[in-house]
């Protein structure tokens, strides 16, 4: 069960003018996995997320989700199939309360009768009871990221793409987030793909890591392999000149 590929990306490319943001990238994510996607700034991680979730159209290549081709689907259709995401720069529903924002996501799989129960369940799950009636516009960045995550979980997605969910969090908040994510993974069977700069989080959370540099997938493997991979070290620290 857990070895079936839920997401397959095949030879995906995207250019912006002369800049090749994503260059012939192929990988696959198995159902129930937690995959980390790392790489230096400008490596094309967010663009890759945008291509996979339908917010941008690739120039070439294909994306399959649960065996269905989603390459040219609209974001809402992809979400209805069972994949949602969060954003690097929080996309806040400022004038809505936390529970209202969660409700937007919950409507993906619920009707008017079941939506309230679903919202309550997600609010509890993500520890948002204390702020459920506060407007999102008045929240701190940390709280906003939790709301974004809650919104995405509420869609009933089987796979979540998290774009820098850990950025700007303190060590304690980060540990809490990691606990929540691994709980979602082990209990709800959620497949996760996380873009992250915080190495502590990626290495601790993800048994499977992809490394992107200048739009190219340069390495793939378990954390220990990635840590020792010379291409990865080069991409992050520059070329070793004296050796």
């Amino acid at each position, binding site marked *: 069960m857990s070895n079936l590929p839920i997401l397959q990306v095949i030879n995906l490319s995207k250019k912006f003018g002369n800049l090749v943001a994503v260059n012939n990238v192929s990988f696959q994510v198995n159902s129930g996995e937690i995959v980390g996607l790392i790489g230096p700034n400008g490596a094309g991680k967010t663009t890759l997320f945008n291509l996979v*979730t*339908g*917010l941008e159209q690739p120039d070439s290549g294909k994306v399959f989700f649960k065996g269905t081709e989603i390459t040219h689907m*609209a*974001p*809402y259709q*992809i*979400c*209805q199939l069972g994949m*949602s*995401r969060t*954003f690097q720069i929080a*996309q*806040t*529903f*400022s*004038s*809505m309360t936390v529970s*209202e*924002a969660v*409700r*937007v*996501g919950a*409507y*993906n799989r619920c*009707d*008017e009768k079941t*939506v309230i129960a679903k919202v309550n369940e997600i609010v509890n799950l993500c520890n948002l009871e204390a702020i459920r009636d506060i407007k999102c516009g008045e929240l701190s960045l940390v709280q906003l990221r939790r709301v*974004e995550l809650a*919104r*995405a979980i*509420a*869609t009933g997605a089987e796979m979540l793409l998290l774009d820098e969910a850990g950025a700007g969090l303190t060590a304690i908040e980060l540990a809490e987030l990691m606990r929540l994510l691994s709980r979602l993974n082990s209990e709800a069977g959620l497949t996760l793909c996380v873009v992250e700069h915080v190495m502590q989080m990626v290495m601790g959370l993800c048994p499977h890591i992809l490394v992107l540099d200048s739009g190219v997938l340069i390495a793939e493997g378990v954390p220990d392999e990635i840590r020792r991979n010379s291409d990865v070290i080069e991409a992050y620290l520059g070329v070793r000149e004296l050796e």
Partner: protein
Amino acid sequence: MLKKISTPKNLLLLGIILFTLVLPLVIGSNQYVLVLTTTVILFGVMATSWNLIGGLGGQLDLAAGAYLGLGAFTTGTLLTRWNITPWVGMPLSGLVAAGVAALIGAPLFRFRVRGVWYALSSSALVQVLYTAFMMWSSVGGPMDQYLPRYDASFYYLRYNTYAPYYYILLMLLYIALYLNYYIRGTRLGFQLMALGESEEAAEVLGVNARNSKLKALMIYAYLVGVTGGVYTCLFGYYHPRFFDSNMSTEVAILGIVGGLGIPYGPLLAAAVLVRGRELLRANLGTVVERSSMAVYAVILVVIALFRPSGLAVLAGDIYRAIRLRFAKDTYVKSADSAGD
């Protein structure tokens, strides 16, 4: 059961409804006040309907005049050409307006036209229709088209008092208000609110942006189209100048100044601003021509500076302040009586 229904809020609502129903009987002899009130409600209907797409959905629509004009021409043409009663013409007007809205909205929303570009596109629709109807001679072209005249005719919806039009518009207003409250609590309402804030975020949460916005646009266009039918009967004629950019902008202004997305905001703004504008015109217009518009503009700027969240928020603050005061009094009183 009775206790549950007779909350202060519901009693206030009942009072307002009763007041609006008997108002023409009280001021019936004063046709000036009645036409003024009717105008307020006319703008109230349009701005309240606009609130669905503009307030909830966050699309700055400037095409109210287009849908009003289409409604006026539909009802007017059916009546003058084929002698079809406005009672049939008005619902059809709504359908024509909603149909055109769908034709315009589908490609705009498909290609993600939003923000200022949506505002400009919708504003252009008014101008395009104005020019098209000026040239379309078989529905009258640039000539005023007069409806048949009668002192009192139910079939032709012609009366020599404003009261019947007042009641029809009042009914539309209550429908528009009800829809605002109702939709706000449904899937469509939540999806529109989310779209108004961040389209990308809404879409990855499963919101079909085009369909949701199209639904809101069509409901709004339908209500303004029906209003257009009433409008032509109220004035007894129709002309392409009904495709009015200024009026379209004013509808959006009322929606914004009233408080985006707040159901009763646009009506409040219409009551204050349309009434205020007419007062200014009556008092200042005779002193310096057009000076009333300058004062009106200053009032808008002051509101924008000090209450950018809208009049409805201001009204809410005042209401809360009064309640707090009231609650304090009763608290003190009960404390006193406990002391006895």
